[in-house]
């Protein structure tokens, strides 16, 4: 059966061009960030994504190579200007729109090339887009704080506050509408607003409600809502000096915005309600989706900062939930096992109900590398296990909290490692001298697997085998002030242990 030619080329929007020339779409990026998806397999090549002809593809490859080689010493605007594809056509022939591609470099922590974000936008409306981007960016910053505030306060308290705010805003709205309907004098006059009835003027009553909403919102950390309430207060205040329909209209709008903002928080609240902190990832994904949806209308430039901050927050918040962690590592193990035709039962255990997920976040990179290596190298194929009379393959991730430190233990019941074989391989690879290998005990010999360049493979596999993973794991743990241990018995399995200093707040309650 032939593949249908379906150029899935981009419309307006945003995608990530990775250093290897493959493309990750905004939605996939969002799902990856939220831990709910994976990169497409097989990888989607840029040349296919944009439907480049062979000549264009060759030029593009050449450009990518130059970018990889020169991105540190050649200014990005010069490199980007040479990108072979600057414009694409989207849509059907009749109403094809010209879409400009803007390339922007994303750097990793070391200043190397992490990827290139490509924004596809209509070239004709740049100005309006720039404004829109700035607004979106500011709104996004505030929204992010809202989400953090939602996470930081107990749901009941937040719920009570939001109900209170809704009541007050309804009251304010009613007060304002009533005054507008019954106001004395000509249109645009504000006299009656400040004339006391029942001891208070309508203006004062409005002010009181707004002020309460603002104060409470600020106390809970809902800065967005507090800011809109402040703006409404200011507008109301200005009605003491300034009359006229436009001024009145602005205040009406501000009240509506305030109501909308509170409604937004209630909706966000519903997303979390009853599902604990794990739902944080969903909320952030929801926000990321919104940002991505808006991205199509945004120009190149500062799309990355909000995106990056969102991705970071997603990570941070996602790590707050032990349930999320278990699922994340289970997904990882199962996905790798599936790709390799292996079967593994993954378990998470703990000696305490009081897990500090922060520990996982700190050594996430190490855990990923170790789990990857275990599935790839440690766990045998089902047929091998059957031949050796072994049962179900297992990997267990155990969290052990002690007085002053935390252990993350990862163990499998796979083929294990023979220290003598490891040492011999290390010597073969030139990682140590025979004399050095001789001098090591078994634990020392096994430790060779953490050296950069150590691999048992002749060729790098898709999952691991470049001899970098465990070295990276060791570095990650060392960077966090921890220790990484490995024990193994040939035929029986391997155990890794990450030892971390405790970072809890245990001394606070004495």
């Amino acid at each position: 059966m032939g593949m249908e030619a379906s150029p899935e080329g981009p419309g307006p929007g945003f995608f990530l061009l990775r250093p290897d020339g493959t493309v990750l779409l905004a939605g996939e990026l969002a799902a990856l960030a939220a831990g709910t998806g994976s990169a497409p397999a097989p990888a989607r090549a840029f040349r296919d994504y944009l439907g480049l002809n062979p000549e264009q593809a060759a030029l593009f490859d050449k450009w990518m190579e130059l970018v990889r080689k020169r991105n540190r010493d050649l200014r990005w605007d010069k490199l980007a200007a040479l990108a072979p594809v600057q414009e694409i056509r989207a849509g059907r022939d009749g109403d094809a729109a010209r879409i400009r591609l803007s390339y922007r470099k994303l750097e990793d922590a070391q200043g190397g090339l992490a990827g290139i974000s490509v924004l596809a936008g209509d070239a004709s409306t740049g100005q309006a887009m720039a404004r829109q981007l700035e607004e979106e960016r500011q709104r996004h910053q505030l929204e992010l704080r809202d989400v953090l505030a939602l996470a930081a306060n107990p749901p009941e308290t937040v719920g009570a506050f939001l109900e209170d705010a809704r009541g007050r805003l309804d009251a304010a709205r009613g007060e304002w509408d009533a005054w507008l309907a019954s106001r004395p004098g000509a249109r645009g006059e504000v006299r009656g607003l400040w004339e006391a009835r029942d001891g208070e003027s309508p203006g004062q009553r409005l002010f009181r409600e707004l002020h309460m909403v603002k104060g409470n919102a600020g106390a809970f950390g809902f800065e967005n809502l507090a800011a809109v309430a402040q703006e409404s207060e200011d507008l109301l205040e200005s009605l003491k000096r300034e009359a006229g329909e436009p001024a009145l209209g602005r205040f009406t709008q501000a009240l509506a915005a305030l109501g909308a903002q509170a409604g937004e928080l209630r909706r966000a609240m519903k997303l979390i309600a009853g599902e604990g902190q794990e739902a944080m990832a969903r909320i952030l994904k929801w926000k990321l989706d919104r940002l991505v949806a808006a991205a199509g209308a945004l120009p190149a430039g500062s799309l990355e900062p909000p995106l990056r901050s969102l991705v970071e927050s997603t990570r941070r918040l996602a790590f707050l939930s032990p349930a999320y962690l278990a699922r994340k590592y289970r997904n990882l193990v199962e996905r790798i096992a599936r790709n390799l035709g292996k079967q593994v039962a993954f378990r998470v255990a703990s000696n305490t109900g009081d897990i500090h997920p922060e520990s996982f976040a700190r050594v996430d990179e190490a855990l990923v590398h170790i789990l990857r290596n275990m599935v790839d190298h440690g766990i045998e194929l089902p047929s091998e296990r059957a031949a050796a009379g072994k049962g179900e393959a297992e990997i267990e991730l155990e969290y052990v909290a002690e007085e002053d430190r935390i252990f993350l233990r990862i163990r499998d019941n796979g083929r294990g490692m023979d220290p003598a074989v490891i040492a011999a391989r290390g010597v073969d690879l030139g990682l140590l001298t025979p004399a050095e290998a001789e001098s090591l005990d078994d634990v020392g010999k096994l430790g060779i697997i953490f050296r950069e360049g150590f691999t048992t493979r002749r060729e790098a596999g898709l999952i691991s085998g470049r001899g970098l993973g465990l070295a990276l794991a060791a570095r990650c743990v060392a960077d966090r002030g921890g220790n990484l241990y490995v024990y193994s018995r040939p035929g029986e399995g391997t155990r890794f242990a990450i030892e971390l200093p405790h970072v809890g707040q245990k001394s606070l309650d004495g």
Partner: protein
Amino acid sequence: MPKSVVIVDDSKFQIMQLGRFFVEVMGFAVAATGENGEEAVELYRANRPDLITMDLTMPKLDGRGALTKILEEFPDARVLVISAVKGPILLDCLTLGAKSYIEKPLRFDKEDFVRDFKSTVEDILRSP
């Protein structure tokens, strides 16, 4: 000692413009000027300047050919391509080892252009 530059361009007027920029704005000394690729190679060899600017469309040997020869002989040579030709050939030149490029027309009357030119040259001098 001021930095030295060899300017290669088939237009005498542009050589004059570039020379003035390098002397007055960058504080360079112009070691020599040439009008084709063959001269470029000879002048580089004779002067070993800190920088050589290279037009691409030139008689006898074109800029791409000249910078290929120069870089073969002097891998550390700092070559700045200055050309109105865009696209694949620029990609070629940078891949071959040109340090950077400036697009013609030379708009020394524009502040932005001068600023960009200046920072490009400074970047190149910083590179090893």
